[in-house]
Each structure stands twice: as structure tokens, then as C-alpha cells.
């Protein structure tokens, strides 16, 4: 649901958004298209965010910026994620404005 709301927020800002309900579906999207930014939740069915980013960086070898959002992020986890190749990490709750600001920043980079 939050995914859908953020999608609406992004679309209202003029971004084109694809939504995947789990990591496996996300993998399929990346087979077909290129994206400017990937926003991930850590806790996902079938494939969690951690496995996805490992796959993205090590198997897919893509350098697409990745923003990870989760409520379960502490400092240790944050370092671990950054180590695996996350571009930025946001701890939930993330307000819409903060989220859009981060998105804007990551895409501009």
C-alpha cells in the first residue's frame, strides 16, 4: 500500500513508475527495461531486499542507484546494506517529502 502511495506521489511529480510486489517480480522487470532508480523494501516476499541487491550488483552487475527503505534498519544493518551496494538507506517512517527529496537527489546524481 505504501508502495502504491509512493508510486502515486512519484507519478504526480512526473516520474514513470513500475511496481513489483516482490523481489522475483523486480528481477523480471530489470530483464526487460532499464531504470534510473530502484526503491526497495527490505522485507519482501519470495526474495528480500538484501538478496535482491546482492543479485543486482553481483549477478546482474547493474549500477542503478538503489534506495532501501525499511523499518528494521539500525546502524549495523545500514553498514551491511551499503556494503552490499545500496546507494542510500532510509529508515521508516519516511515522509513523502523526504522520500521525494531522496529520489530527486539520487536521480540527479
Amino acid at each position, binding site marked *: *500500500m*505504501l508502495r*502504491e*502511495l*509512493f508510486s*502515486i*506521489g512519484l*507519478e*504526480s*511529480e512526473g516520474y514513470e513508475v513500475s511496481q513489483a*510486489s*516482490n523481489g522475483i517480480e523486480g528481477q523480471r522487470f530489470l530483464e526487460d527495461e532499464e531504470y534510473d532508480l530502484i526503491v526497495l523494501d*527490505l*522485507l519482501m*516476499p*519470495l*526474495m*528480500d*531486499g*538484501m*538478496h535482491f541487491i546482492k543479485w543486482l550488483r553481483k549477478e546482474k552487475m547493474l549500477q542503478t542507484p538503489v534506495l532501501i527503505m*525499511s*523499518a*528494521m534498519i539500525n546502524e549495523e544493518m545500514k553498514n551491511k546494506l551499503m556494503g552490499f551496494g545500496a546507494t542510500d538507506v532510509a529508515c*521508516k*517512517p*519516511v*515522509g*513523502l*517529502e523526504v*522520500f521525494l527529496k531522496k529520489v530527486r537527489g539520487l536521480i540527479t546524481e
Partner: protein
Amino acid sequence: MKYGAIILALFIALFLWGGEVTGLFDAPNGWFYDRLVSVSFSEEVPKSNILVVDTGHAPEVIRPSDWEKLLSELGKHKPALVAFTFVPPLDLKQSAKEGVPYLIGVAPELQSPDYHSPLNGYDELSTPRGHTSLLSRPKSKGGIYRFADLYINNQPGFSLAIAQMIGRGDMVADVQRLRINFNHGADWLPVVSFQRAMTGGLIPELVQDRVVLIGSVTHLNSPGLATPVSRDSGTLSLTEFEGYTIETLLHGNAIKELPAILIILLLLSLSAVSLIAYQRMTMTMAWRLTFIVILIFHIVAWVQLHWATMWLPLLPLVLNQILLLLLVVRYRQIGSEEALHHVLSDAGSWVRGHLMPEDFYASDQHWAQVANLVDQSLDLQRLIFLERIEGDHRVREVNSLRCSIDTIDERRRDYERTPYSTAIEKGGPIRLSKQYLEPFSEPEQQYLVPLSYAGEIVGFWAFSVAPDRHDNLEEFESVVKDFSVQIAEILYHRSVWQAEQAASSKPLMRYLDFRAGDDLNQRVIWTLNSLERRWGMLEQVLGELVTCTALYDPFGSVLSANKSMEQLSGNYDMSLYEMSALDFLVKLTNMPVELARNMLSTVIFQKKELQFPVSLEKEGKNTFLLSIRPVGRDETHKLAVDEATPFDIRGLLFEIIDPSEFSEIAGIKSQYMERLLLQLRNDMEAVMTGVQLLSSDRMSVDQHQRTMEIILDKVKNTNTRLIEAEGYIDVGMNEVMRSSYPIDTISIVNTILSRRGDELNQKKIEVVKSFPDLLQLGLAKSDNLTALLNNILDIQIEDAGPDSQLYFSITSEEGAQYMKIRGTGFGMPDEELQRFLKGDVSMVSEQFKRLRKGIEHVSSWGGELKMSSELGKGITFELKLRSVF
């Protein structure tokens, strides 16, 4: 009746008195009398007033000269009177002249004018010194001669005439009949033979002033008289009998009898005293008292007879005492029966009230609920409950679903024939090969199940099921049998209820059928059966409690203990059922006995819960907590007023609690709470984001609408989640341990693999894990899941060869998580594995039996367990669990 016992006692006393007065008890009373007369100790024997001269059995052959000589000898010693019990063949003028009065006993028939009387020659002897008197054989009572008639044909009889002649007749002036005093025994009368009397055997001490009675003692020619006392022949002669009568008259010691008024007063007094005494005694004491009282009656009667020459009517007294005892016994029995009825009635009502309300039996609606429940649980096509009708051999419909009694062939409604008899014989469900219910639109397998309760067939349950609906028929039939037990109980209660209704509506018919009154046996059986089932259920509940629990009565005896407690006490060599609560407390806590006693008193009298640390080394844990708390009396089920318990509590509950379990539970709950908070935060964030979006002016109408819907959905979901969370948080330890609860599946798997690490290493099995870093919480009973995973591990280890791998992977999707446990062992053909899981249970190893149980558990949590195998490749288990967050 309130005063029934008193009225009956009065009636008994009056009846016995009436019997005594009317002579109804003469024979048995006489028997008692004879026995007491014959018992004689060292009594002082009074001097006899009589001398008996035995003429032998043929006095007629004695010569007249010898008679004259005898009379002359007697005359010298001045006897008071010479009396003959026969008519002597001599002239007594001389004797009369010598101043010795005489009397001749004459049989009444000899006075007849037609009779050639031998007295004719004695007419002139009717002088002041010579008389005749009537003498006849006395009358007996029951063949025993105890009484003498003093008058014969309204004339003074022989004995009375003698008494009158010697001036002692006025002693018994008004007495017609007297009870002869035989107290001094058969040898009391001095007897001298005629020969001895003739040869100087007569001395003045024997004769002077005595009545000399001359007659035959040997009585060979006539039957003797049976009296309370007798000589060797067993009887006395008429002469001796008259001798005793004369002695009784002259001593004035005839046996007196208690006046009728005194007898009734005595009986009534004894009845009153006995009734009071018996009421205060136990039955054993009452029997003993009765025995003692009867013995006392005998002693008193004997003393009265021998010292006061008074006969106490022993039989009525003895009978009265025995009948009073029986009366008290009966009344106590009635009291006990009434109390039992009361208890059974109360217990029965209570049990029935707790089983099902009365309207359940009466209403078809409730039976429809039962039918629906059974139908839904077993996925049946048609079903019908039939009840047995008393006095009829045909079954009657109670309730049915998608069929009716008419669906059953008319010829197959007789429960004394097949298929009913076959089902009864088998005692469980039978598959029907011949058509029982009329054909149905779909293929079906028909079943018939006997419904029996307390060993009695109460009805039948017929149903049909799709032939391929249940793969494991054995399991299905086992479940059907379990259902049938429950249905039978309900049906039985219905039949009892119907019988009660019928009884209350047709009381007259019950009397005509001799079925009036309560059928106590049936009530006892019914109540006990119901209570047994309830007790069994409670024991099962207690048995399934996680904590070690034992229930003691207030006196410290074990009432019940659960398996955990039995196991624990067994581990520590404690005989739980042979130990009192005090012993158990002392053994567990090593507390001094006196202190332990005080502690228990505190629990009982102050109704306080106490807790003590308990060290159980063998358990591998340091300290447990022993909690003792009073189990209070339920105010709504107060015990009978006279119940013999001084306590306000019903028992003591001992619980041994493992604090580490609390910590485990707290951990599970805390984990759940943590996830819950995150989820709620996430939900709140979504709502806030949605609200922020709504305030944006860049959104299209569609986006606006969609955002609104998402917010509403989110709010609804959050609310549902909170309600669900309430159910998970507000539960006790038992619920957490025994119900499916959000658990950390990865943590459980890791714990198991860690515990069995050594075993896996020894077998050189490599464990390869593929777990997500984050996983939603799964729904399962943690102990059952642990047992299942251990069982799976057992199977995999057994199947593994050297250097096998064991792959553990966990993945998740929305609302579910999947665990795959794949071994690269020897494996087996898949058909064989499926046979182990679904085939005949008796052919399966314990491991696979446990696995089957595990599959049932997983299903009950809403999950699924699948297994597959390939020969040479290993076995794979796939476990699906529902998940939250």
C-alpha cells in the same frame, strides 16, 4: 412418613403384647421357659412337704397284709396325710381309726353311676378322716405339662383336696390353675420304694407331718408326662406330677406371670429406650447392643424365675428387640437411599445441565445443528440419526440431512436384523455393500454405525460419503467412531429425557407396568457414566497443561496429576500417588517438616498462594518455581450442609513452573510486539503519506480517488491487525505454548540445528542453509513445530549416506512462508514414502506415525506439509506455514 418409625414401633409392641395375651406365643415361650427352668446352679433347696412311696408298676399285686403293714408303719410316724393316686385294694378303716387321714385320687369316670366302682366298698369311709377326690391326667400345652388344674368338674382336684385337708387350701382360694414350680429339679421329691418302706426305710424325719403320696412312679403302663424337668426316662409319672403340684401348693411358690398391663408397659418402655439408643449408634454398635440386651433379658428372666418365681415373657421381649433393630436398619437404609436419591438427583441435574440444556432434547433445531456439524466435519453426502424405540424392533428417525426414514428400505428398518445386527456385533462403523439408503444422484459409499452408550445400544447413524472423498479409510472410520461416541451420549440423554416426559404424562401406566418409583440403578449408571466422561475430559485437560500440575485434596492426598508432573516425579524417584502433599513439599524444597506443615496450613486456612524455589538438578536447569494455591469452593455448588469437611477449600494445586519457559514466552511475545510496532508504524506512515498526497494539487482525479481508497484500506487493515494482536498478546503461557502463535521460524530451525550439530557432524552430514535475513513471523505451535522438525531431521539423518548434504531453505510470500528440507541421502521410491504417510498405520514405524501426527498439527495451523522422495536422490520435505507481518 414423618413419624413412621415410631408408629411402627408402637404397632410392633402392640402386636407382640396381643400375641402374648392371646397365647399365640405359648409354644416358643414355653420352650424358653423350659430352658430357663432346667438351668439351675447351687440353689438352696427348700425342705419337701411330701414323701412319695413308689408302689412299682403293679400295685394291685401287693397283698392286703402288706398294705396294712405299710399303713401301720406310716401311722407310727404321724404323717399329715396319706394320699393314694389309685384306688388301693384294702380296707382303710383301721388306718382311719389310727388317726391318719387319707385321700384317694379317683379318676372322674369312676364316679359314673354305670361304672362298677371299686369305691363301693369305701362308702362308709366318708368320714372326717377319709375322702376321695378326682384325679385326672393334666392338660398339656404343646405336649409339655407345666400347669395343674386345681379343680376338676368344679370340684377340688386331688392336689387342692390334699391342701385343704391339711388346712393349707386357702392359699390358692381363687386360683383355678397354677404354673407348677419345677425350679428345684427332678430329684427334689423324696421317693421311697414300697419294699424299702416295708423293711424299715421309713424314719420319722421322712414321714412326720408330711403328705405321704402313694402311687406308681415307674408308670410303665401309661405314658409319662413331659415337664420342664424330667428323670432319665424323659418324663414324670402322674404321681410325681401331683407331688410337684402339691409341693407348689404347700410352699405357695407357684410361678407367677406378669400382668398383661405390665407386659405392654414393659414393651413400650423398652421400645422407647431402644429407639433413642439405636439412633445414636452406628449399625455395628446397634447389632452389638441388641445381642447384649437379649442376653440381659435371658439373665433377668432366669433370675426372676428362680428367685422371685416370676415368669418374664421372654419371647415378646426378644422379638421386640430384634424387630426394633430391623426397623432402625430399614429406616437408616431408607434414609441412605433418600440421601443417595438426593445426591444422584442433584448430580444428575447438574451433569445434565452442564451437558446440554433440556430444550436440546426436545427441539429438532438443535439436532439439525448436530447433523450439520457432523456433515461439515466429515464432508458427508447424506446422513440420518435413528433411535431405538423401547418395546419395538423398528428404528425411528431423530434427524436427517438430504434423506429421511423413508429413504431407508421399508424392510431394513428392523434393528434386530442385518445390517444393524452386523454393526452391533462389530461395535463400530460398517461399510454397507447392499443398498440401505435409496439410490442417490451421485455415487456414494454407505455406512451404518451403532450408537451405544454405557453398553446399551441407543440408536444408529447411517450416512454416505463420496467413494473417493477419504484416501485413508481407516483414519476416517476411526474419526467416525469418535463422533459416534459423542452422538450416542446425546441420544442417550434424549432417551432419558423422553422417558421422563412419558413418565410424567402417564403416571398410572407406570404403576400398572410395575415401573413406578425411581429406577435407582439406571440413575446411578447414567450419572456415573456422565461424571466419568467429564472427569476423563478434565484429566485430559490437566494432562495437556504445560506446567507440571498436581491437585491434592485438603487432606493432602493426590486427586489428579498431569503427565508432566508424573514424569517429573518419576525422574526424581518420587511415588507421587503414595506421597502426601506435605511429603511432596518437603521432598521438593528440602524444607523442615514442621515448617512445610505450617506453609500448607497457611495455604489452607488463609487461602494464600505460596511459591518456593525448587532445585531439580537432573532436569539440567537450576531452579524451578513451586506454586501452591488453594482451590476454592464454588459458591454456586455448595456442598451438603452435613458434608464432613471443615475446610472452605476443595483442594491444593501444586504447580512446578520453569521460569525459563516464561522467558521463552516473553521472548516470543516481545518479538511479536516488536514486529507489530514496526508494522503499525508502517501503516501510520502509509496513512500520513496518503494524507500528504491528498493535499497535493498535482494529483489527477483518478490518483486522488485511488489514494483515498488506499487510505481507507490501510485504516481497515490496521484495525484488523490490532484486533488480531489483542488475541495474541492477551494470552497465558499455556495458550502460547499450546496454540498456534506467531513464531520466529528461522530461530527455531537454528536452535534445532545447533542442538543436533554434533550428531550431524558425526554422521558427516553437511548442512546448507539458505535463510532470508528478514522473515515474517510464522504461525505454529512452537513445541509441535520443534517436535516435527526434529522428526524430519531424524528421518533425514537415517536416510543420509556418508558426506550427504542437508539443504534447509526458507522463503516467503504474502501471508505464507515455505521451508524446504532436502536431503541427498539414499531416498526411497516415492510410492513407498506415500504408503508410509497414508497407508495402513499398523505397518508404519514410530517415526512415520509421529510424522503423520505432525502433518495433522500443521493442518490445524492452516499450513501444509508435503513429502517426496526419489530412490538414490534423497527425501524432500516442503513445509508451508501461514505468516503474519
